[in-house]
């Protein structure tokens, strides 16, 4: 069942309605063009040779036999990718170090994980390309490897980067370390806090890395012309970011690269990065022909970013009345082969739903011999949240207080702060918790072998740079161009907001995703920012059109523009004797009376604010096999204002499903040499449709005051509490604490058998 509980005004024409999506027909007929749907004449096929070792020195690479193969047009290695110096501090939250990126797209001194790219070829057919990479001879000196973040952080662990010394510790270390940095935040006096506590709960958690699991593998075509211009067609969450990274990495002018985003078959943060793009540019430059590179599923698993696996320790103390007085946590995040796991977000995620007087969280960014992590839907949050939420549930148990009541008592209020110090404006946390408490699911009876889990998730959204161009055409239709790939229905939401502003029929608005040459910079479709930030740019652009239309009407009527208003899609005036002018009429006049009408907006949107998602899960555990079946699942989330409720609900359900997979079955399985064993969806067990019940949703609407319609981000929050909620349900079903994800049947059965 899906519900919307709103406190906001509801007299919208389009906002909040369930509308047909503009990209729907092409997607259901198969006409939509994804990454590998593009072909060009003269196109070559690129293929990547990948490391078979987890950690090894590259002694030599001999490409001569591959180059001699008929049909091979070019071979590239690290020698073809420019090197860059290491990034100097200060380090921001998202590290984009060209030194590392150049080595990740093509291994230089060493290979750092099974699947690390070592060389690539371009050939006249895929078959020849495949044969050619087998002819490349690489001499390796195998080095000891390390996969576990805790083990990698210990002295004596195999070191991935001899140049890396831990930042954020005093005194500066003398020995290199796999720990790139230690980040922490704190407030109050922990010692005093724990001294005041009547009850203290301590727990430990472990989790495996999980892949974003997008259905569409990375795929692109790059074309370099003789005059230095490069065009790229690629499946990405941000073509402007791809342009910037490629230009900086390849030492090119940014303006000489034009990137077009294909339709995208899922990303979840995993398509924020460059992988084969710079390599394809180089292959195309060498051959003067378009080069297409499409990853196989196993390449996606071996070569692209998962979310960090983690180890965490947590301690929380409360007084008998339920006041949480002290909280301390630390988490080791696997960064993969290169630094840059979401440590700051992990720190912020443990305790920021609560106003705890004395709290500290610490996160370690640890390099290990696995693919470099990429963002994944609320990066850094789900595992930190699981630790805190399961600990709070145990506190509730010991205090004999209802878990939602305990959270209500400690919930952060409007004007409060996250642990990292971000100030909250108007937030919907209390409304979300009240909705949980009153939801029939929360008090429904359970059958034998069933358990109910509950967890709350917090996520602070980003806003950022967005650009939009809106063109009014002669016939009264409006083309809205954004720079954000449509990954979750954004074209639909942009159309709704434009139609709402203009007061016209939805079908008159044609939203598109434009290339990087067409408009101002737009940051990634990520961070749940598009409907919020790009939506604001759409509204601004359309408002500019409306201003121009009012001016046009004033000119036509020969009256002052202040006497012209825009109402329900028409220019109107209070003055007598003037009939309203419709959008269509004005559009037809424009070219004869001054020129075409367009609006544009380039903004850096602030005030995206925080959102909270609460989830109730019922599972049943088969006591003889450890099999977990999901019985019921409810997601309750503050969306600010749901522009398109269907997509908001889809996001809430999708996040929950990814959390189910994270909690129950998804994991990377390596052999003792550090090579990945489960290279496809058969053995990397994401949930299939029949694994999950229809997930109920309640959209709570507490409008964000910083958006014209009250929008908050909705994509990331639903994953934040999901693994914790599912794990909590399993714990309650079997009556045992289990802190190590995934809670796969062998682990559950093992735990049950131990207790028998």
């Amino acid at each position, binding site marked *: 069942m899906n519900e919307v509980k709103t406190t906001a005004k509801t007299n919208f024409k389009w906002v909040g309605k369930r509308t047909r999506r503009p990209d729907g027909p092409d997607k259901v007929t198969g006409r939509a063009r994804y990454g590998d749907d593009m072909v060009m004449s003269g196109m070559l096929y690129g293929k990547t040779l990948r490391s078979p070792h987890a950690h090894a020195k590259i002694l030599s690479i001999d490409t001569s036999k591959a180059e001699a193969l008929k049909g091979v047009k070019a071979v590239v290695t690290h020698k073809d990718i420019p090197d860059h110096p290491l990034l100097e501090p200060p380090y921001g939250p998202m590290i984009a170090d060209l030194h590392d990126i150049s080595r990740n797209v093509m291994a230089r001194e060493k290979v750092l994980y099974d699947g690390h790219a070592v060389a690539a070829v371009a050939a006249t057919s895929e078959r020849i390309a495949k044969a050619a990479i087998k002819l490349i001879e690489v001499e390796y000196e195998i080095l000891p490897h390390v996969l576990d973040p805790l083990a990698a952080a210990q002295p004596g662990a195999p070191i991935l980067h001899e140049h890396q010394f831990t930042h954020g510790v005093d005194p500066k270390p003398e020995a290199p370390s796999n720990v790139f940095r230690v980040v922490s935040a704190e407030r109050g006096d922990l010692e005093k806090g724990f001294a005041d506590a009547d009850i203290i709960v301590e727990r430990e958690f472990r989790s495996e890395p999980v892949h974003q699991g997008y259905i569409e593998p990375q795929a692109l075509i790059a074309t370099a012309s003789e005059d230095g211009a490069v065009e790229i067609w690629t499946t990405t969450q941000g073509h402007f970011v791809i342009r910037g990274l490629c230009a900086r990495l390849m030492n090119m002018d940014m303006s000489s690269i034009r990137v077009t985003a294909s339709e995208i078959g899922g990303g979840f943060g995993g398509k924020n990065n460059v992988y084969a793009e710079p390599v394809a540019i180089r292959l195309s430059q060498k051959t003067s022909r378009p080069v297409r590179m499409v990853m196989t599923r196993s390449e996606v698993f071996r070569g692209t970013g998962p979310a960090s696996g983690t180890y965490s320790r947590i301690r929380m103390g409360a007084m008998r009345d339920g006041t949480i007085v002290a909280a301390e946590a630390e988490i080791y995040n696997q960064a993969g082969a290169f630094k840059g796991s979401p440590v700051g977000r992990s720190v912020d995620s443990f305790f920021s739903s609560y106003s705890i007087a004395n709290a500290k969280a610490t996160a370690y960014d640890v390099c290990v011999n696995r693919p470099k992590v990429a963002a994944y839907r609320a990066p850094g949050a789900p595992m930190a949240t699981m630790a805190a939420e399961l600990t709070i549930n145990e506190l509730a148990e010991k205090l004999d207080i209802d878990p939602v009541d305990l959270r209500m008592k400690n919930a952060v209020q409007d004007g409060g702060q996250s642990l990292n110090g971000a100030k909250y404006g108007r937030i919907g946390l209390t409304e979300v918790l009240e909705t949980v408490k009153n939801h029939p699911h929360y008090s429904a009876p359970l059958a034998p072998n069933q358990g109910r889990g509950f967890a709350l998730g917090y996520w602070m959204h980003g806003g950022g740079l967005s650009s939009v161009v809106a063109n009014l055409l002669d016939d009264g239709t409006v083309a809205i161009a954004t720079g954000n790939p449509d990954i979750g229905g954004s074209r639909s939401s942009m159309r709704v907001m434009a139609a709402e502003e203009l007061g016209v029929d939805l079908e008159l608005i044609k939203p598109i995703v434009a290339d990087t040459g067409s408009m101002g910079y737009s940051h990634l479709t990520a961070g749940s920012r598009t409907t919020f930030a790009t939506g604001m740019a759409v509204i601004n652009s359309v408002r500019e059109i409306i201003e121009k239309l009012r001016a046009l009407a004033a000119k036509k009527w020969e009256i002052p523009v202040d006497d012209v208003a825009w109402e329900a899609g028409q220019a109107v005036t209070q003055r007598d004797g003037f009939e309203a002018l419709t959008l269509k009429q004005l559009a037809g006049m424009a070219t004869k009376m001054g020129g075409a009408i367009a609006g544009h907006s380039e903004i850096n949107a602030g005030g995206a604010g925080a959102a909270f998602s609460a989830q109730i899960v019922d599972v049943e555990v088969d006591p*003889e*096999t450890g099999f977990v079946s999901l019985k019921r699942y409810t997601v309750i989330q503050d969306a600010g204002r749901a522009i398109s409720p269907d997509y908001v609900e889809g996001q809430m359900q999708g996040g929950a499903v990814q959390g189910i997979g994270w909690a129950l*079955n998804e994991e990377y399985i390596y052999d003792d040499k550090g090579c990945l064993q*489960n290279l496809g969806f058969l053995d990397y067990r994401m949930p299939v449709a029949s694994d999950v019940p229809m997930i109920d949703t309640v959209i709570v609407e507490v409008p964000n005051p910083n958006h014209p319609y009250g929008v908050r981000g909705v994509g990331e929050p639903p994953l934040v509490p999901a693994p914790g909620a599912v794990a909590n349900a399993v714990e309650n079903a079997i009556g045992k604490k289990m802190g190590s994800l995934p809670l796969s049947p062998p682990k559950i*059965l093992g735990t049950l058998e131990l207790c028998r």
Partner: protein
Amino acid sequence: MRYEAPETIEAAVALLAAAGKTARVFAGGTDLIIQIKEEMIEPGMLVDIKKIKETREVILDDDEIRIGASVTGAELGENKELKKLFPGVVEAVQLIGSDQVQGRATIGGNFCNASPAADSVPALIASGAKAVVAGPNGTRTAAVEDLLIKPGQLSLAPGELIISFCLSRPPKNTGDAYLRFIPRSEMDIAVVGAGVSVTLNPDGTCAAARVALGAVAPTARLVEQAPDILLGKELDERVLAELAAAASATCQPINDKRGTIKFRTSVAGVLACRAIKIAWERAEKN
């Protein structure tokens, strides 16, 4: 790579015999095509057997049932009479892959892929199926379990191929069942599989029983002690406990990405008991 689609058994045998080890028999292709694409195998020739009439038929005679090797899962699922006689065998084949895969995947292909985890195999063994094997020296039949050697390998001579599977028409009060454990609800490969066939005496005690396990050893295997435990008995808790122990004792599994030795051994006992309960109930009704 050559592709041939002979219309007679003789032509197929001749092609296979002449090509030697580089030829592969091609039915639904749901395993073979993936193995070719993933470069696990590079056959020189594919011999498509779907044009051979004998491999495409399901014949229900008075005393014998014959299922062609290239009959698909979906076709078996639509065969109501067969489903009534051998629900366990049909259910096992129908567990393979998705609906789309069911339209292509064949019972013979599942058997000949020779995966220790193949769902059809424990069910066929439990029901006492025999394979009809054609080859350069004519046709022979063999108990299906006798053809299993090790993962990926059957005891077939060069030029031999499986044409069909034969099952005796089950006596009165016979029922079969197949269950598997997977961590998901579908689209997965058995971590443990258990096939059971039982025939009951008029007094409700066990007259005949065969229990076979999959994914717990290099090949699917019979639980040899099952008849000793079950014959003449009713299905009570003590008998079930003995059966579970015997099933677990039959296991010689490995630790791999799909399960652990401990888990497989334990769950084999559980599934054997659950499957026999279903088979028993069916036998009582037949």
